[in-house]
């Protein structure tokens, strides 16, 4: 029974996990990222466009990530260089991504999926499934064990800290936001590589669930991906629902849990101190 849930849990977890890692990079550097949803959507779209034009899944992945970076760059320029309101910009990016993908909708021909690797007993999965744990651990080491990560986090904890070391806060924030574009778009690519075609709004709120996982996981790569796994497991229960629980309740599980965590009932989740703040 539990073994049957593994494939669907993984399929739900992977896109969330990538987007959540992206969210962590951006928010750790101090930039609120509500645009994860749009970045995933544009990544999913780019994958299909690239794979369709070239017939190669790898080119699809590159185009998806490329578009994710472009849209992340837009978020970065607006929020970091022009000090635009970060939440509004994020929402605008989501609207923009929805508009672009609706305007230039690709044909519904099947596109190739990413290559799969065989795992004993539980089946074969897309390479991205194996990549996520690697990136999770790498991100943890990068953020918490290297000077590079220390600086990125310093950008998110204080508006002045990097300045006193005569380092540019903006540069590190650009890093964070662009990385979030790479990761979130990869998550989006996974979505379309699994179903082999693009449908309008295929991200379906997953970016927001990933954001919830970032908060639930206390802005920490290991906990964040673990939260995604929990959410992914919960939504796979929806498919194997034997207890007549309304699907809608299961679907709301991540959202309710996030509110509970934010209220501090299950361990306080503290955001980076200078999240959303710009020096004036």
């Amino acid at each position, binding site marked *: 029974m539990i073994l049957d849930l593994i494939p669907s849990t993984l399929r739900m977890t992977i896109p969330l996990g990538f987007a959540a890692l992206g969210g962590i990079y951006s928010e750790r550097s101090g930039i609120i990222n509500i645009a994860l949803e749009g970045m995933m959507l544009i990544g999913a779209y780019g994958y299909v466009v690239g794979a369709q034009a070239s017939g190669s899944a790898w080119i699809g992945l590159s185009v998806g990530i490329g578009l994710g970076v472009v849209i992340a760059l837009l978020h970065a320029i607006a929020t970091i260089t022009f000090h635009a309101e970060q939440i509004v910009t994020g929402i605008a990016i989501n609207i*923009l991504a929805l*508009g672009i993908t609706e305007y230039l909708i690709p044909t519904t021909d099947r596109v190739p999926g990413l290559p799969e690797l065989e795992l004993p007993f539980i089946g074969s999965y897309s390479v991205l499934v194996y990549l996520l744990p690697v990136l999770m651990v790498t991100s943890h080491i990068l953020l918490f064990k290297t000077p590079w990560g220390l600086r990125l986090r310093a950008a998110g904890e204080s508006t002045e800290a990097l300045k006193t070391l005569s380092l540019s806060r903006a540069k590190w924030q650009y890093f964070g936001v662009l990385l979030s574009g790479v990761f979130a778009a990869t998550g989006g690519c996974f979505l379309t590589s699994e179903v082999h075609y693009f449908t309008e709004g295929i991200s379906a709120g997953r970016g927001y669930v990933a954001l919830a996982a970032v908060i639930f996981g206390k802005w920490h790569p290991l906990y964040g991906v673990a939260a995604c796994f929990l959410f992914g497991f919960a939504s796979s229960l929806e498919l194997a629902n034997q207890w007549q629980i309304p699907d809608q309740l299961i679907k709301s599980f991540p959202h309710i849990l996030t509110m509970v965590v934010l209220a501090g009932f299950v361990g306080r989740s503290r955001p980076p101190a200078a999240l959303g703040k710009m020096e004036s």
Partner: protein
Amino acid sequence: MNIRQSFITFFNSLILQIRQLIRNLLPPLLAICGFFLLCGIVLILRSQNPWEFYTTIFISGFSSFDEVGSVLFNATPLIFTGLAVAVGYKGGLFNIGCEGQLYVAAFAATWIGMHLSLPSVLLVPLCIGTAMITGAFWGAVPGYLKAKFGAHEVINTIMMNFIAFALTNFLVTSVYREPNQMIPQTSQIHDAAHLPRLAGILTFLPQSNLLNASFLLACACVISCYIFLKYTRWGYELRLVGNAPEVAEYGGINPRAVTVWVMALSGAIAGLAGVADVMGYRYRFLDGFSSGWGFTGIAVALLGRNHPFGVFAAALLFGLLNKVALDIELILEVPRGLFLAGQGLLIIGLVCMEGISKRNNG
């Protein structure tokens, strides 16, 4: 001499006010011009005639009373959601939860409208009141969580959106679905709960025109919000907490209490957008009826500079865009995604201009 001096003072203050007005109006106007320019460029890239695009917008939006009525009809829910966001913003709060608030409110109005048979004079206010209270509750929860635990209202309103979608989806598919219907919608509300179409009174509108009394409600709401914000004690408290919470606290205002009621008020106004759809147009609850009004409300408030009259004007513009999108799609074969993408860029442009001016001034 005295007269001359007072004249000069008056003249100077007039110039100052005009300058202020221009400073306030310039960014939105620039953003709108940029938007239409961008649409034109896209049309040229599609090797179509951009002029045709502009004339289609004009014809589809203004060529008859019928068209104008439809524009106003399309603008109605956006006036409510725009006002809701603006009121929250003035109080220093970001209500991204309008979409969820309008769904639960719409369902509440439908429930009352379906289950109670009362004369119109009682039923209509009862439906509207229930909807507002439901919307207020949905807004007040994130407000309370912010006041009590310091949880950011943006995240919580987003989460409450998803919970509202799930809740109303559950109610409409599993409990109150119209019998023998595939479409996820409830049965119709009683006739007594309908808001009348304005075509009955305004004879120059054709009978098929959808413009209804919810538009008048929206106008009343704009004026009430203006008076409320500018001339009442509560409006003053709201603005003070929005601008300088520390000052407000020093002045004896409890910012936490204000946070809760501002979110409730914002949710109540957002709920009226649901009322407009249920009682003025569809006469039932249809799952997923709103085409992102809650999110467009953010753009409307931003473009209207969070001023009730500005919000009204911005809502008319977006109502026009929503109305003409269909015609543009039919006549010029331009997908409506163009407007959506343009909307996103318009918002980004606006917040960038705001960010720059804030950085330069402060």
